[in-house]
């Protein structure tokens, strides 16, 4: 309180001291926790990326930039980067478009609106491990429900989980199915903040529904849309659960589906090379940082804050 400090110095500084005491005391658990759980680990991960983990995790050997050199020459790392980006480019736009469509529909007076909202959100509360298991079963090439329906429609069976060209789409479908409800709920909340009279005025002016969507809905919901986009992209770039549950290291589709985080997991914990794993996760950090900076820059062009 800088204005107040003009009057009665002794008393105020005591009050200020008291506020300092409380302020630091209240943030202490969180800050200490963040330092131990996050800040030190970031430094350690960076540090470890210059070491080769010794056998059985003992005796780390300093190797300088070798992990990074190895990483940049490792074709599997680059295919993981490509897979992760491809996955993100499929999942995020499809999810957002579907979520937006559903949110716009549910923003109207519709019978059973609450029930639909509840149903669309259900996949979000199911554990990805369980969800992927049932999708694997649905995708089963011989006995799966999906191929059965396709065959009935006269379409040949698809080898969803083992065909290297198909598996990533199969994984993307699971991700879209799981998260569309979440994005929809967020967008719906954004839509509900738009004043109704805007649409009434547009109706009087005879603006078409599409024009109303473009001129009123989209700009006014753009802050929410931006939030959904940023979080979905970051989530998608860190994809692990579904691929881990669906694609084994020995699967023929592994090279075409392995994501950066899955590769990080395999190197760090399956092959116990934590140094190399650390280098991979540093690469992921760099990619996410670049994407986030670009989004922040581009946001100024299309996000309208009221």
């Amino acid at each position, binding site marked *: 309180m800088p204005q107040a400090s003009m009057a009665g110095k002794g008393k105020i500084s005591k009050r200020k001291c008291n506020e300092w005491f409380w302020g630091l005391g*209240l943030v202490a658990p*969180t800050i200490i926790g963040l330092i131990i759980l996050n*800040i030190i680990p970031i430094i350690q991960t960076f540090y470890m990326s210059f070491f080769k983990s010794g056998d059985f995790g003992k005796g780390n050997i300093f190797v300088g930039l070798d992990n990074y050199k190895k990483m940049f020459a490792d074709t599997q790392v680059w295919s993981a980067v490509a897979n992760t980006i491809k996955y993100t480019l499929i999942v995020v736009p499809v999810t957002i478009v579907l979520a937006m469509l559903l949110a716009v529909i549910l923003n109207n007076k519709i019978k059973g609106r609450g029930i639909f909202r509840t149903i669309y959100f259900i996949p979000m509360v199911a554990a990805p491990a369980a969800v992927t298991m049932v999708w694997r079963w649905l995708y089963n090439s011989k006995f799966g429900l999906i191929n059965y329906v396709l065959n009935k429609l006269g379409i040949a069976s698809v080898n969803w989980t083992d065909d290297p060209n198909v598996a990533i789409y199969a994984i993307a479908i699971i991700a879209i199915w799981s998260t569309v409800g979440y994005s929809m709920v967020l967008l719906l909340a954004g839509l509900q903040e738009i004043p109704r009279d805007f649409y009434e005025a547009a109706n009087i002016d005879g603006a078409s529904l599409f024009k109303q969507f473009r001129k009123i809905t989209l700009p006014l919901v753009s802050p929410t849309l931006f939030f959904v986009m940023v979080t979905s992209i970051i989530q998608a770039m*860190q994809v692990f659960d579904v691929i881990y549950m669906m694609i084994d290291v020995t699967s023929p589709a592994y090279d075409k589906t392995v994501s950066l985080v899955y590769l990080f997991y395999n190197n760090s914990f399956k092959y116990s090379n934590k140094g190399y794993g650390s280098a991979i996760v540093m690469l992921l950090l760099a990619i996410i940082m670049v994407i986030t900076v670009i989004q922040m820059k581009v946001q100024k062009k299309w996000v309208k804050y009221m």
Partner: protein
Amino acid sequence: MNRKKSISKLLIYIILILGAAIMILPLLWMVLTSFKTVTESTSMNPFIFFPNAWKIDNYITVLKQNNFQRLYFNTFAMMVLRVLCSVSFSAMAAYAFARLAFPGKNLLFGLVMFQMMVPAQIFIIPQYLMVDKLGMRNTIFALVFPGLVSAFGTFLLRQFFMGLPKELEEAARLDGCNIGQIFLKVMLPLTKSGLVSLGIFTALFAFKDLMWPTIVNTRADAATLSSALAKIQSGYSVNYPQLMAAAVLAIWPMLLIYIIFQKQFIEGIATSGSKL
């Protein structure tokens, strides 16, 4: 005009119902398969949608081979402890960041923001090594460890505190309350929706988390529902009815909680979005 309107309305309902069916069907299929025999589940001609007899044999087998009681306990304990710790610590820090002046405030808040921008995998190896060094692998503590505090929660609740009028605190201060009392008795009750929102978020993501429990609790009786499923899958990979029974056993508690508290869930998620 009227006819056009009713056609478009019909179209909208078709889209909505079709979408709802797609959302439900995989879960329904999970439940139906879990009651079938292997022969039924792989029968294509004739195709069997409903099991001929609703047999619970798959559940009995799965429950016999896995200690689900233990898994429920581990998962539930992890969720409750993570929610308690992260909600209370975040609320404290959030209030201080929103309303109090103290040295280093901006720097410390920058720390919170920084943590949110970094992918979580970057912390995992060192966190694992810490738990390992403490000799705490395969414990509930290990499961809770990365979720003791929450940068996201601190940021979220700070938004809630900033939205409250300042006059309330002034009035309480004049009544002779100290800062701790103002926080606990005046401000905290007013951010109830934020606390609920964060609690739901924390519980849901703890429940769904797969990588951390898989890494840190490798013993079968220390696993969570999620990480146990991954193991069960690699165990009996071809017996889908049994796998589906295990999946049903793993997801029903959260599904039930969701159905009971659906309003809080959806509103909780929605407010988190509008506050960030």
